[in-house]
């Protein structure tokens, strides 16, 4: 199995979720994150003092999938999260050894 992690723009989450669901992914986990990268942050001003905020809000999404699906899932995410503008984010994959479904104790692909 593979753990696919994607860092994307917040407003793409809905489309990414729908695309994955359509493909047949049954579950995923989402966290709020902040990204630092080529996409610059912004300036804030408080009583004349300027603040550079380097970090841009991002959504971090994790989905564990069967080895066979990994490539497909990565490209589905890439497509659904794409806007073409700087800051669209990254998708990476990491090997997973075991996964257990807490409710049933099922292991491996059955736990997905």
């Amino acid at each position, binding site marked *: 199995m593979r753990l696919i992690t994607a860092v994307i723009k917040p407003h793409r989450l809905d489309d990414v979720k729908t695309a994955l669901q359509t493909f047949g992914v049954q579950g995923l986990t989402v966290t709020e994150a902040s990204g630092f990268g080529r*996409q610059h942050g912004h300036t804030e001003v408080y009583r004349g003092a300027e*603040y550079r905020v380097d970090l841009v809000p991002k959504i971090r999404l994790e989905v564990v999938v069967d080895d066979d699906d990994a490539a497909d899932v990565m490209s589905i995410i890439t497509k659904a999260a794409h806007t073409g503008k700087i800051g669209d984010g990254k998708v990476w994959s990491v090997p997973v050894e075991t996964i257990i479904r807490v409710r049933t104790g099922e292991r491996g692909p059955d736990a997905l």
Partner: protein
Amino acid sequence: MNAAALPTQLAAPAELSAGDTAWLLVATAMVLLMTPGLALFYGGMVRAKSVLNMIMMSFSAIAVVSLVWFAFGWSLAFGDDLGGGLIGDFGQVFLHGMKPDSLTGTVPSLVFMAFQLTFAIITVALISGAIADRTKFRGWLVFCAVWVALVYVPIAHWVWGPNGWIREELGALDFAGGLVVEINSGAAGLAVALVLGPRLGFKRDPMRPHNLPLVMLGAGLLWFGWFGFNAGSALGANGLAAQSLVNTQAAACTALLGWIMVERKRDGHATTFGAASGAVAGLVAITPSCGLVDMPGAMAIGLAAGVLCSYAVGWKHKFGYDDSLDVVGVHFVGGVVGTVLIGVFAWDAVTPAGERGLLHGGGLGLLGKQIAAVLVTAAFSFAATYVIAKVIDRTIGFRASADDEMRGLDLAVHAETAYDLGSVGAASHLSSAAKAHPGPSPARAEPADRIDADED
């Protein structure tokens, strides 16, 4: 406003009453507090990325409207009639001639003028709810000034000014602002919402309130201030003020319960947001009638408003106009309900004008006048506002750029973020440039030209 008594009072000032003055001073402060209250009420309803802009629309309305009012708005609205009850003259520009000892009725003219100002302010601020999250700030500032001068001031004169034709010719009643404040802001809100068009993602993206406790706080402050608004309109600390206060409470309560009962039936849940909305709908509806009906009449008016408004807020989804925070559904509809029902529930045991509605044997006469006044006010407000908004949009621009709207106006327009509750915020830097205020740096010379655009 104790409309029947006023013209006479203006003509023949009595002696100052410290009691009446005390009440009107406080009522003025209470109504002024309604606008910051509204800022929070509205601010809690929008998404976290534009709450500051929403608040800023109310606060800037306070400033702009006050200055216009002091400069000439008051004079045009409440100065001597130029003829036909259409508009006042310029005799009191910059409060010319208003000394501390000038009286209006039993109170200093200055406090009556300030009390009226607070009505103008909140009327303008109310409109901002219809155009949340997508308005150019500069456009809004200009709109505030122009709209109060060209729309609010005439209507205020027609209804409450010396010889105002809606009161004197048409004979319609509006105790505390159903026509002037509620229907006016509601119709104007619709017009501006149509000119600006819907928010990006309207009907598709969820745009749920980001902070409901803030909404409830705003509702609490509005409720408090509304006692000043309605009971203050008696222009004295007397039985009429007491009756208005009681009616205000009665209508707010039946409307609150009416709204959440509809919700419970229709949606399966009585919501907090619905309770706040219902209370406000009832307060809106009782505004024109609070000094003209008895308590059971107020209960009926509130209940009607609560039920009807709870349905009316759904119209925008059906018809597709993006009245973001329901200025039409609550203020227009509530205002119409309250103003029209005066024709049904007015009772001469209460109203100083001595009028009776249908229910108390007054026939259909008053009802007809009330409906006519509603139509005239709504039509004028809608049409004039539409033109004003269109002109602003074509000239200096009234709609924020799509980019700014996506990022959120707080960052794009005000360079601020509402909340910084986490520890990641620590990872920003104090930019050294700022410390010395060297004037706009080249990169910031044209704010629209942000080098660090970020469309999330």
